[in-house]
């Protein structure tokens, strides 16, 4: 599978995750978010930025609790919980947010 954006072709896997992670940029994220029916707000970008930073260092998406805590520290304690993340990304912070952040799909019992 693949999609074209601004004259560039982006290959994706069956679930729509970018195959080549280096191809990611904000336009791609915006495009993928639109596909998911999401309106990207600053709060959405905070999550994406954190996921990318974490992935850069650890080569894996963070545990959900690490993500919620980080978001709580950035955006205020009342937002540091799973419910807030699911409000932002109804498809799940691990899967949907990872897709938009250009991370590979988490595999396993998740």
């Amino acid at each position: 599978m693949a999609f074209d954006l601004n004259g560039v072709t982006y290959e994706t896997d069956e679930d729509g995750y970018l195959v080549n992670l280096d191809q990611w940029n904000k336009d791609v994220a915006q495009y993928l978010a639109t596909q998911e029916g999401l309106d990207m707000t600053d709060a959405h970008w905070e999550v994406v930025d954190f996921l990318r930073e974490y992935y850069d260092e650890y080569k894996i998406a963070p545990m959900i609790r690490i993500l919620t805590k980080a978001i709580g520290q950035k955006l205020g304690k009342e937002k540091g919980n799973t419910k807030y993340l699911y409000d932002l990304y109804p498809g799940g912070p691990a899967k949907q947010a990872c897709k938009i952040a250009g991370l590979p799909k988490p595999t396993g019992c998740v």
Partner: protein
Amino acid sequence: MAAKIETETLTGDINIPSIQPGATAHYKSNPAKEDHNKFLGFPGARVENWREAAVEHMGELLGKYKSLRVFMDICVRCGSCADKCHYYIGTRDPNNMPVARQELMRKVYRKYFTPAGKLLPDSLTGASELTEAVMTEWYSYFHQCSQCRRCSVYCPYGIDTAEVSMAAREIMDHVGIGQKYCNEILGKVLKVGNNLGIEPHALKNTLEFVEEDVKEVTGADVRYPMDEKGADVLLVAPSADFFSTPHIEGFTGYGKVFHEAGVSWTVSSYASEFANFGMFIGNYDTMKKVAQRIRDAALDLGVKRIVVGECGHAWRVGYSFWNTLIGPFDFLDPKYPAPQHICEFTLDLIRRDGLKLDKSANDEFTVTFHDSCNVARGSRMGDMPGGQFEVPREIIKAVCNKYVEMDQNTIREFTYCCGGGGGLLTDELMDLRVKGVLPRANALKEVMDRHGVNTMAMICAICKAQFTKVLPNYGIPMETVASLHQLVSNAVVLGGKIGV
């Protein structure tokens, strides 16, 4: 975004529906990629002579596993199993009746392995060649079986459809028809050490996070160590425990229990996975390789005991198969079972009055327990018959004031699958997963309405992931799903009785 999956309204009753032939014939797991298959020693893609190769391999399996041949021969079509499968109840597709699922293999068996099937016309024997169409059915419906074994409990002959599914998947892998979800994950666990692909430095970071978090919340220095040589206990958890919620809350609980027991423990970055999908694909060699990492890690770290976390199918592998796969465990302390389930460890401590517990910490929860298939029907626990049912319940009752059972036809050996077991916990099968949870969701709904249950505890990583994902489709909040050791974690008073 994916279209919303149509769900039935929960009534609290489990009704057996009328059939809808072909309702789920289009469900198809993503096929494995060439490198997924090859890494496990299977052909990268479907081989040219797949028919002959599949029939030949079926013959080998029939010779190797006598039970499989018996299962092929002895079904009398009494129909007792027909309405016992959650996937049939949820999807109405008659091919999801266990007897019909077996028939997909049995008709091929008749054709190639019985005298009547070889000689007489198929219309008389119900035999069938392994055609393209039959293989398409195999791939679809043998990936609509979570290998939960509920049907086998009701079969007068004990025919085990799970074993038939495992054999079918093994035959398909053998000719290059693999399923991506299982085979990709098996590659990861064999390369990185866990299904998620968490590398050692990331695992370390996660464990440090848990340590700091517990310190912040409780003020206590509870350790969550990794790769510590000379620890008494190697703890092997499903890797979802290092990633998901509510899994991590259970893992946090294991650490508190060890802390209170005064037992030194460690996880291994080399063997940071208890799950073993080798069982789901029915491949002995792969199952052995995955398990072997745990033996190697235990020897390398010099531990005296192996304790395992909350993972249903892996407990079956550990309890029933480890000794053959990676035994003997003569290098471990013979005073303890190998492996020992974390529930056995915790209950033993509770019984010896070694844990100070504050049950009121769980007073906001009215709890029920979901028995996971492979624990309920594929293993035992503790030292008494039925221990796999009693041990977890005894722990819950020790840490919670309010406990309620679901309908007796849906618990213990009659438990309904979560709908995501057996290698089906993948997004492209979401429709099946949402439908497959229906009987469990109804049984849960009944105790929610009648007794105010708001928490369903369990000891399986797949169950937890599946329920948190699919129950909201029925209006049941994901927070209902809890790890058993999360309840323990809430109730443990740290520093209460160290060293007992």
